[in-house]
């Protein structure tokens, strides 16, 4: 046992001795080229997945930042609203872990434009179904930065009694050629007077702004002052349908949800963390894209392994004579194999290191400042540290195998044939 350990230890130390000198005295251009190829291989492993996952991650983040907050209290099944809404709202507002709370009245209705020029009953009205949301503009903005999502016109003020913000999905003018598949107002824009109908009650308002958050639950809604919608709904109980809560940055959504549940809020409202409040389709897309990313990453890993294999194989083949000489003077196969494995590890690690610099020094900051503009999300570049480190480790082990196999193939050849080059 000890002899075996000594053999391995000697092979490792002699392999290291040979590898260091091989690398140090190789052509700088060759070393740079191999390192560059390894860096590209590493980026292939990380970047494709990062962008794919980033597409959905952008959407997930938008949902959290622009709609749900960190915790979302919703209406229980079979209930019209959150009963005694003031209780969970007051509890949330008093929590030191909470930075902002916004309560929303939510009710379905219809919006209609161009109604003043329609003279015949059979003439098609410019009409669409919409979700009306009553908000306190200041509180909502503090929680979701809704004012920053205004792409045309302006944000609501507390004096806007007869004004609304309309999501882009409800206005044909702001939709892409493909549209959203839902009905929208063809003739409306900022400044247009439209008619809202809720529970049969009609109110005329003016569109003062258009919001685009790339979040369905924002872009297909009509926002107005909470007190105005309450009047329209004919409600005087102050019970709302949604309460969004933003954590203070130091506390987690789970912590806040646990406190609310501990206070028995689940008897009045559905308590969901932002993850739980994500629509199922986003979760499904996220899982699918992550799977696709892993699949492409696996192909990248195979390409990386083959690249290293070829590099080491060519390296070993061109030095076949010297491998023969080393064996001729008594350096055993294991030590020579170790030397090539060390070299491949060096190339993989230096390539990965350069790749990490590119990923975290260039790509992550760049995509954070310039998200990819997809129709359904602001695509970011996801390079979570554990995920990237996992890929470094996977690449490391793939490298060991890819460096070892060609070295073994060459080392196993007849010593004399190798020396004589036959």
């Amino acid at each position, binding site marked *: 046992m000890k002899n075996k350990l*000594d053999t391995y230890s*000697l092979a490792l*130390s*002699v392999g290291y*001795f*040979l590898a260091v*000198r*091989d690398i*140090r*005295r*190789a052509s700088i251009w060759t070393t740079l080229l191999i390192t560059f190829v390894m860096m590209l291989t590493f980026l292939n492993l990380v970047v494709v997945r990062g962008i794919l996952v980033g597409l959905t991650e952008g959407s997930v983040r938008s949902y959290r930042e622009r709609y749900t907050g960190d915790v979302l209290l919703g209406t229980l099944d079979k209930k019209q609203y959150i009963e005694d809404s003031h209780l969970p709202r007051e509890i949330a507002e008093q929590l030191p872990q909470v930075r902002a709370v916004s309560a929303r009245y939510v009710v379905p209705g219809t919006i209609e434009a161009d109604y003043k020029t329609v003279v015949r009953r059979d003439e098609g009205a410019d009409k669409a179904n919409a979700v009306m949301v009553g908000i306190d503009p200041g509180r909502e903005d503090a929680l979701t930065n809704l004012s920053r999502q205004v792409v045309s016109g302006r944000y609501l003020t507390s004096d806007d009694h007869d004004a609304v913000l309309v999501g882009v999905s409800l206005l044909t003018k702001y939709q892409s050629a493909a549209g959203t598949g839902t009905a929208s107002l063809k003739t409306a824009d900022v400044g247009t007077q439209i008619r809202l109908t809720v529970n049969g009650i009609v109110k005329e308002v003016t569109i003062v702004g258009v919001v685009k958050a790339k979040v369905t639950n924002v872009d297909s809604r009509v926002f107005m002052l909470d007190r105005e919608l309450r009047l329209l709904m004919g409600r005087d109980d102050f019970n709302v349908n949604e309460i969004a809560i933003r954590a203070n940055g130091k506390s987690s959504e789970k912590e806040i949800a646990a406190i609310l549940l501990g206070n028995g809020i689940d008897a009045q409202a559905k308590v969901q963390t932002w993850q739980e409040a994500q629509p199922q389709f986003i979760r499904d897309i996220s899982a699918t894209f992550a799977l696709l990313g892993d699949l492409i990453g696996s192909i990248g890993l195979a390409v990386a392994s083959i690249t290293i294999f070829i590099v080491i194989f060519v390296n070993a083949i061109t030095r076949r004579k*010297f491998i023969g*000489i*080393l*064996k*001729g*003077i*008594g*350096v*055993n*196969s294991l*030590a020579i194999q170790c030397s090539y494995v060390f070299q491949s590890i060096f190339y993989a690690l230096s390539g990965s290191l350069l790749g990490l610099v590119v990923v975290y020094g260039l790509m992550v900051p760049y995509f954070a400042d310039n998200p990819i503009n997809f129709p359904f999300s602001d695509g970011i570049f996801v390079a979570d540290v554990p995920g990237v480190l996992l890929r470094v480790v996977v690449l490391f082990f793939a490298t060991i195998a890819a460096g070892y196999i060609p070295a073994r193939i060459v080392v196993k050849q*007849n*010593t*004399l044939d190798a*020396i004589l080059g036959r």
Partner: protein
Amino acid sequence: MIQAIHLIKQYKAGTGSITVLNDISLSVSRGEFLAITGRSGSGKSTLLYQLSLLDTPTSGKVVLDNQDTTGFTDDQRVNYRLRELGYVFQDYALIPSLTAAENIMAPLLMLGRSSSEAYVIASEVLAEVGLADKRDNLPSQLSGGQQQRVSIARAIAHKPKIIFADEPTANLDSETSEQVLQTFLRIHKQGQTIVMVTHEEEYTHLTDRVITLSDGQIIKTKKSRSPRGK
């Protein structure tokens, strides 16, 4: 020290085979300086490869220091060469990425010497072959004669029982060849067993014994007039 018993070496050639060594038997005593000579294609290098365990005979056996090497695995051969044999190649066979000292250190490290010990030994043997100031030079920075002396230094550094040299002066001019041979003679005087292949008859008088091969057979054995080069 060395016994070759009925050595036959054949190589495949198309459907048939070529016999390069044809039933060679010889023995070399401890401390002897043996020269193997013959014309090109006579089988002298092939014989050296069999004796030095760089190749395996088709039949027959090689016994080194009373140890039958028949059936040695590749690793056992490498290990035996490391511990007991030194080898000087015709084309010096230095590793280009290693300095003169490092070329000598590699087998020493494999023997378990520490890096500093190996460097000291390498420096000593380089001084012995007159290259003390060249230890940190790469092979590409050395002349042919200097490279061959590094190769000799590498072969003797671990104090092997036998040194094999395959036409060590073939690529050198006469003056450098003389220097290299003087190096061999100096080692030999210290009691080192040396088996050297050469086609240069003028150097064989420096050895203890000369065997001449032709068509894979020993056709002549001659004791030198000045054994041990004295």
